């Protein structure tokens, strides 16, 4: 049967995100946020999620709306500081102890996710050695370099944003929209991609940034970002 991973609406696949699921959400610096999917997810209201995303508080990403809706039990992030002196909704829940925070240096964060998708259960990284973020972690000197043992991160669902997709699930990104999406797609059981445009014919091979094998569902939003 001809493969076709395109879906008309994402409601059904998003509704499969269960209470307690680990979800990864792409986006960095204002590009690549799957806000179309996040809006549906917020309405679906699963609870006790673990959220793996670069930032817990980026104003352009609707990840913060999941936190405001008290759907998140734990975040694994590189940034969790709200702007301004007021506490952000994340910071309030963190202070109250209702949300758990794992703060990870961004390079270890992206590499741990890549490792999760690449079948590397753990690796040694020089990043973070000698800092509070490595507290309690195993360390080791390898060829004169002090390293921290970092474990892979895997997830249940990856929500990513691309520019174009084909029916096979191949994804093309618009410039820095890419950021964490390829690694996250490899590290999760189910990847749902929102894109500007989902075409019937195959993407030219040279345009494919994320191979189809990593993508389960594609939904077109018709919007530039």
């Amino acid at each position, binding site marked *: 049967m001809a493969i076709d991973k395109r879906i008309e609406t994402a409601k059904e696949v998003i509704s499969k995100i269960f209470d307690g699921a680990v979800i990864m959400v792409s986006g*960095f*610096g*204002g*590009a*690549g946020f799957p806000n179309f999917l996040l809006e549906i997810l917020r309405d679906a209201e699963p609870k006790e999620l673990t959220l793996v995303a670069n930032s*817990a*508080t980026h104003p*352009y990403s609707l990840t913060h709306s999941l936190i405001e809706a008290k759907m998140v039990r734990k975040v694994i992030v*590189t*940034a*969790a*500081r*709200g702007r301004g002196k007021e*506490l*952000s909704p*994340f*910071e309030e829940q*963190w*202070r109250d102890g209702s949300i758990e*925070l794992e*703060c*990870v*240096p*961004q*390079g*270890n964060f*992206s*590499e741990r*996710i*890549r490792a999760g998708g690449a079948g590397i259960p753990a690796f040694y*990284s*020089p*990043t*973070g*050695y*000698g*800092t*509070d*973020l490595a507290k309690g972690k195993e360390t080791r000197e390898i060829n004169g370099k002090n390293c921290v043992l970092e474990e892979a991160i895997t997830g249940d669902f990856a929500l990513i944003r691309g*520019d174009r997709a084909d029916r096979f699930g191949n994804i093309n990104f*618009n*410039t*820095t*929209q*890419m*950021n*964490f*999406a*390829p*690694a996250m797609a490899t590290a999760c059981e189910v990847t749902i991609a929102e894109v500007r445009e989902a075409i019937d014919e195959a993407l030219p091979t040279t345009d494919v*940034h994320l191979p189809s094998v990593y993508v389960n569902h594609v939904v077109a939003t018709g919007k*530039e*970002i």
Partner: protein
Amino acid sequence: MKPLNRNQIAWRAAQDIPDGNVVNLGLGMPVLVSNYIPSDRDVFLQSENGILGVGPEANELNINPNLVDAGSRKVTLRGGASLFDSANSFAMIRGGHIDITILGAFEVSISGDLANWDSRIPDKGPLVGGAMDLAVGAKSTWTMMQHNTKDGSPRLLNYCNLPLTAPKCVNRIYTDIAVVDVTNQGFMAIELLESITVEELNARTEAEISLASDCKPLQAPADLI
């Protein structure tokens, strides 16, 4: 000459970037350095969200909402630029392929320890981003900072008080009053504001700071405001 302002510190740091280098500029003051790189030097700016070859900020005519740098600025690409995902970007950073990273700093210790990510504001979330990876991975780590805190406390210390970004990583410090190298013999000023004596410099620095035998006056164009 008065103490340097932010743009003058950025100008001063920019003069030291060698032709042909690859440089990552941190958020805040460091990103200003890109405005002052001498025009006879061909420098590639890396942004950890996945750009090698960041160009000038975008304007209304050339803006692409998906093309941003790690500081969420809408940017352009220079000729010869390339794009990649976060895992590859940090492989580039961690793997020692960035010549210089210029980072903001709260504190630097005499042995080159850097503290720049957690200023211990109660209940505000951490924001580590890529700083730990950059500090460990770049061939050289420079910092830019005011020589003293707003209340006059020193920031060049015997030991850092704030949580470390990385131990033993800083090579050079640009402040409003001096350019300081971190050497095996401790802090050594290679440039100092003419109006400041070595005694005054030491009074504003916790750790002892010596003058290089060829220490020059710190200067910057007066019209940078």
